[in-house]
């Protein structure tokens, strides 16, 4: 498909509008999983299409089609123009060409061992081996599965301003979970939920020790099965990176989205406790808290050079020494709100328009070793791997649950407890951040499924975080 020629065939239409762009997306996805030693039928998706966006007389509209002929794109263009003209003087902001910058460039994920070069039989053999290690013939393991998801996204953005951006993303998400049951108790232990996900090729599996984790998951699942319930009380809370990613995501990432602050998401994903006047002065967390938007970290799940509105992306502090300094919003949201933002207008595919999203939202490492953090806790708990998340629509009152936890008593890791949960309020929780782990305590993780927007979009985001220690947190367990 010659996207440049297709764009050129529409250039005569440029006279009829103020601005237009074509965003082509080509998506390939493959899922392979083995459950209880049986290969689930592999499934693949091949999807390609184009979104045509038009600005005309202050209005804006889009048309999305998989008919990539000149005729098909002309139809999409006309649909977009019709809607732009119909909504002139009825939009949240006048849509003019100066909202968009002219950019040219490219980005491609670094891949050392391409997904397609590994035969399916090798992938299946790996997953079958992991199944055996998860189960080990123990009848208490009532279900177990190991799988791999691979996605490749190719994007080309061409605009009437002369922008020409080409990007491709190779993304791998390995997953593994065991369910154990005995005498009315059921527990699950997984390989980081779906949080272990990175850009790259098959080499990622080695980087994250996928093949070596099944035995640990087996052992920890059995520990949970016979562990007491998590106690209730206010105590110090040490969070592993595979729970920190959720904490960052829900109570920093979402509240900082400028479209929430502008109210766009109030009917669905919600609003934000963050208000415009807080930027530059609000003490979001303790002075140990440093949060960045970092699209440049190689291998992180949502790295890119340009967002889907065609704005060049660069590393930016969102929270510096605990103070809120910038939000998550693309050029349009920055113009509408007058707030500092980043290149984070993103779309999940050709059939959804870009909206303000997280990308890679990270906590910068501190200086504490894991041992130092544990040693400093008199009574506390160390929680790993998110399994439950709930937060109010202003992203303030939250309650999160983890798969696995160990008590900390007098500076030492103690017994395992099950059903660990904690609750708090974003506005005060981050001020109780008392230690930030160094880089040896951290991990580069993310999630393939961040939901938001109308129409809905589930997009990939990255989160890198060290282990962090919080004081005075309300902790509790389950009933059974």
């Amino acid at each position, binding site marked *: 498909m010659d996207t440049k020629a297709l764009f050129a065939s529409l250039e005569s239409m440029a006279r009829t509008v103020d601005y237009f762009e074509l965003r082509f997306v080509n998506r390939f996805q493959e899922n392979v999983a083995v459950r209880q030693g049986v290969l689930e039928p592999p499934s693949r998706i091949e999807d390609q299409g184009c979104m045509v966006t038009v600005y005309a007389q202050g209005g804006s509209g889009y048309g999305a089609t*998989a008919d*990539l002929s000149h005729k098909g794109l002309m139809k999409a263009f006309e649909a977009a123009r019709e809607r732009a003209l119909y909504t002139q003087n009825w939009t949240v902001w006048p849509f003019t060409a100066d909202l968009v910058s002219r950019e040219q460039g490219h980005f491609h994920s670094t891949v050392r061992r391409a997904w397609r070069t590994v035969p*399916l039989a090798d992938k299946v053999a790996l997953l079958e081996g992991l199944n055996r290690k998860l189960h080990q013939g123990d009848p208490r393991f009532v279900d177990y599965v190991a799988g791999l998801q691979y996605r490749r996204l190719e994007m080309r953005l061409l605009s009437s301003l002369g922008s020409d951006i080409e990007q491709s993303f190779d993304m791998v998400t390995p997953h593994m979970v065991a369910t154990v049951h005995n005498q009315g108790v059921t527990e699950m232990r997984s390989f980081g939920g779906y949080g272990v996900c990175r850009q790259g090729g098959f080499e990622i599996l080695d980087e994250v020790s996928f093949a070596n984790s099944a035995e640990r998951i087996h052992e920890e699942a059995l520990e949970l099965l016979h562990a007491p319930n998590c106690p209730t009380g206010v105590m110090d809370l040490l969070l592993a990176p595979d729970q920190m990613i959720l904490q960052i995501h829900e109570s920093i990432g979402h509240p900082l989205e400028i479209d929430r602050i502008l109210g766009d998401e*109030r009917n669905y994903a919600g609003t934000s406790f963050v208000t415009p006047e807080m930027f530059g002065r609000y003490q979001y967390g303790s002075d140990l808290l440093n949060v960045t938007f970092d699209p440049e970290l190689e291998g992180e799940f949502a790295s890119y050079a340009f967002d889907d509105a065609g704005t060049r992306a660069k590393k930016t502090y969102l929270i510096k020494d605990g103070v809120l300094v910038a939000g998550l919003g693309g050029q349009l949201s920055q113009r509408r709100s007058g707030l500092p933002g980043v290149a984070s207008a993103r779309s999940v595919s050709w059939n959804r328009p870009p909206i303000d999203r997280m990308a890679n939202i990270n906590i910068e490492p501190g200086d504490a070793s894991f041992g130092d953090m544990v040693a400093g806790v008199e009574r506390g708990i160390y929680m790993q791997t998110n399994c439950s998340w709930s937060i109010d629509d202003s992203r303030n*009152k939250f309650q999160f649950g983890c798969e696995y936890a160990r008590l900390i008593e007098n500076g030492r890791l103690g017994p395992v407890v099950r059903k660990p949960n904690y609750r708090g309020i974003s506005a005060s929780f981050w001020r109780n951040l008392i230690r930030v782990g160094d880089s040896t305590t951290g991990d580069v993780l993310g999630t393939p499924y961040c939901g938001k927007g109308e129409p809905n979009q589930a997009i990939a985001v990255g989160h890198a975080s060290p282990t962090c220690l919080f004081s005075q947190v309300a902790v509790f367990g389950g009933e059974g």
Partner: protein
Amino acid sequence: MRDYFFDLAQSWERLLARDEVGLLNFAGESSDFCRLNGAKVRQIGLVIHYRMQLRLVKGRKHTALQLTLCGEADQDRERMRTALTQLRSSLAMLPDDPYLILNQIPQSSETMQANRLPALEEWTDSIRTAAQGLDLVGFFAAGGLYRGFANSLGQRNWFENYSFNFDWSLYHQGDKAVKSQYGGFDWDQQVLAAKMSAAREQLAVLRQPVRRIEPGTYRVYLAPAALHEIMSLLQWRSFGIKNQRTKASPISHLVSGESQLSPEIFLSEDVANGLAPDFDSFGFRKPPQLRLIHEGRHVGALVSARSGAEYGLLPSGSSEDEQPESLALEGGQLQASQVLKELDQGLYINNLWYMNFSDSTSCRMTGMTRFACFWVEQGHIVQPIEVMRFDDSLYRILGEHLVGLTEDTEMIPSHSTYEARSTDSCRLPGALIKEMRLTL
């Protein structure tokens, strides 16, 4: 679109060898989307997307590929021909699947509705007029929805409708808002105006000072939309046979008989009165009604084709994830006009939000109040409340603490548009609860 799908199916089937079986699943939409903020348009567009899943079966081996079709017959036929070559190549590398099961007896069906949707000018003018002077945030979605199944054994199923769904909130300030929904097949400006008027009236109550609720137990009325959030959480992994057999279902204690809900609970997958197609991706038809809970006791489960083979059960036409698509909870004895009087003092909760399990073994769940929720005294709405978190078990909420369900039930079409516009729906009453535990 039906003829287009059937023609493609016929062409593809001709390419199959004698020992091959082909299954095709089609999902298409032509959707107008418009989102608004402050009663003004944030984004508006048209999305046309046709997806075809091709599954090739040979003996006990099978594999699938989903393509996006462009809508031009020659090109789509060629892509499907190429896809068949890919599928054959993949199939050669696969082992037999012990859980493969096909519907061998053709069960063709057809559900077609005429397109009576309003033109772009009509619905945008209606919304623009109705929203004047209001802080309206909302989302309009409308257009054709198409689902098709075909197999080389001669089965043909088709589902086609043209629906709209306008889902919006009127805001007073901060997080104080009234949520409304208007969905259907025939757009009526008068109905929209009436719903907008009702929402305006509730908005007036939101202007009262906000009451802060302390943690504790409260008598509560859950409106159908609030109960829908609870059901949506349960839908996730409660009712499928795979989760039940592997003890991963949050209602495992209900399934085992260790726990039960109120005898007033009658829950079904009610395909006959829902909005979803009545066939699955392997060609199995769904029964008109499948009872899941009867008099508070577990009686049935959703069974996908694959689980049917694994557990030796008859498939119920359920999707592969075994989630209900047309859940229905029967109404009870409580008259709508008596709800406030029966509530007497407590919380009138119109909407819940962001549900999850805090202890799935005990089916204990947590979530937040959202939008218009009120403090009620002596059977009268007094004032809105600050958002509040609850954390309680289903066995208490719809079990020992259930006072009653409303006689009237409400049809709640799904407004989900992840990947595609959903055809799911729920029919639910409201629920009066003696005690519900609020925590933060």
